[in-house]
């Protein structure tokens, strides 16, 4: 515990790196995942197939392998050699998490019954108006709980970066446990940081659910 207090700046730097990894990867995954979902529910069959292939390929690959590819295999082929480690971490996390975001968003769109869209068209709304005012608001509401789960899993997944050159929470924890006798205290302290992050995501999700609750 004394080690942690003496070197609290190192602990906080690691926490900050985990936050950066989580927030940047989260944003990239949400954007890219939603685009993928649009491809998969869209009318153009080539794009649909492309989206389906991406999800099948990436979702069935362990995250560790994605990291190995980005951090070890790609540089050996001459790619990403000068890329900052944080950017590589965000790329690996986002490539993986997007597939899960895509499926969560797609399930939300599918949850809105076809009748809603048909009714919107019947009263003369354009496609954009139909999507923007009728389908997507309902879809987003349905998507909040599964998306929160995806983002929570992603936040904890960032710990894999510890063995790929990024001194985030888990990497820093191993720095402290290497020399220390009271490993348990160190584990608990670092676990608490993850719990804080995950609780923030949960609280955000609950807030959104409340705000978008349907008046029935």
């Amino acid at each position, binding site marked *: 515990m004394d080690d942690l207090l003496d070197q609290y700046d190192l602990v906080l730097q690691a926490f900050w790196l985990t936050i950066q990894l989580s927030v940047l990867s989260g944003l990239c995954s949400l954007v890219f995942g939603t685009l993928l979902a649009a491809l998969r529910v869209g009318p153009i069959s080539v794009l649909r197939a492309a989206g389906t292939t991406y999800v099948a390929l990436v979702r069935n690959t362990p995250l560790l392998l994605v990291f190995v590819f980005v951090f070890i295999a790609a540089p050996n082929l001459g790619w990403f*050699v000068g890329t900052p480690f944080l950017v590589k971490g965000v790329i690996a996390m986002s490539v993986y998490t997007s597939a899960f975001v895509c499926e969560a968003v797609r399930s939300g769109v599918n949850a809105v019954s076809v009748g809603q869209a048909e009714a919107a068209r019947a009263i003369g709304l354009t496609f954009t108006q139909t999507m923007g005012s009728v389908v997507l608001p309902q879809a987003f509401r349905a998507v909040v709980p599964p998306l929160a789960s995806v983002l929570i899993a992603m936040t904890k997944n960032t710990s894999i970066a510890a*063995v790929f050159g990024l001194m985030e929470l888990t990497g820093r924890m191993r720095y402290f446990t*290497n020399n220390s006798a009271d490993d348990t205290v160190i584990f608990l302290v670092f676990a608490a940081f993850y719990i804080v992050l995950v609780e923030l995501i949960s609280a955000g999700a609950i807030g959104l659910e409340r705000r978008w609750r349907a008046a029935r």
Partner: protein
Amino acid sequence: MGHIQKVRAAAVALALAGALAACGDAGDDGDEGSDVEVQENAADEFDDGTRMKELADAGSVTIGVKFDQPGIGFKGATDDAPVGFDPEIGKILAADLGIAPEDITWKETISDNREPFLQNGTVDLVIASYSITDERRQVVGQAGPYYVTGQQLLVGTDSDIDSLDDVKGTEVCSVTGSTSLENIEAEGAKPRGFDTYSECVDQVLNGTVDAMTTDGAILLGYAAENPDQLKVVVEPFSEERYGVGYSIDAPEMCEWITETIEDAQDDGAWATAFEATLGQSGVETPDPPAMDECPAA
């Protein structure tokens, strides 16, 4: 079965036998340097109630070593037993208990699990490039040092880094959670932790990081593998004193480990072990280090 087929079958059988024999030979080559003299009736040497007596009576011992450090402790995917200086020390200790090399159970330990493995009895001894530190001596026993090395840097042959001041602001790779990574961070380098040393070597070879750091002995092994691309630079800037880890519940082991290794240093077994392993990278066999005194039991 026609004549031709018979000849063919015989040829295949012969080839197969040859291949098997070749495998056997290869295995024997790997075990060189293991010509330790196994003590007979070793159990009589030890007092009742000591851990050494228990092990000698059982006729088997479990030793934790590294599997991923060429020269120190390395086991390829198809090898039966690890090779390196640490396993050689293990064989010397086991021989004193009357345990032959083939009766030793080798258990892979990584830097993080050496203390837990000793504490919960998964292994009897840890000989795994295990630097002696005061922090560690609070939770486990460490006898030694049986070898002293120091942290150095492995860089590309075209690198500008040739003194420790040059590492400030550069990216330096080592194993996550290792003391080496900690030391280089203190020198102002950006620490890049990976899972294994071989991944770090890759990062240096493909130019992602500027250097790799750990104990010089390990780096020399990698430089020897890629002499055209890699070189070891800077004078050792830390002193790593490798010790043999034992359970803190068996303090009597310290005297035994210390005396056995001192004997090996005197009768040349230590030097033989060094030449067969770390010495392969071209370094001269150093004088064996003086062993620490054991804490009063």
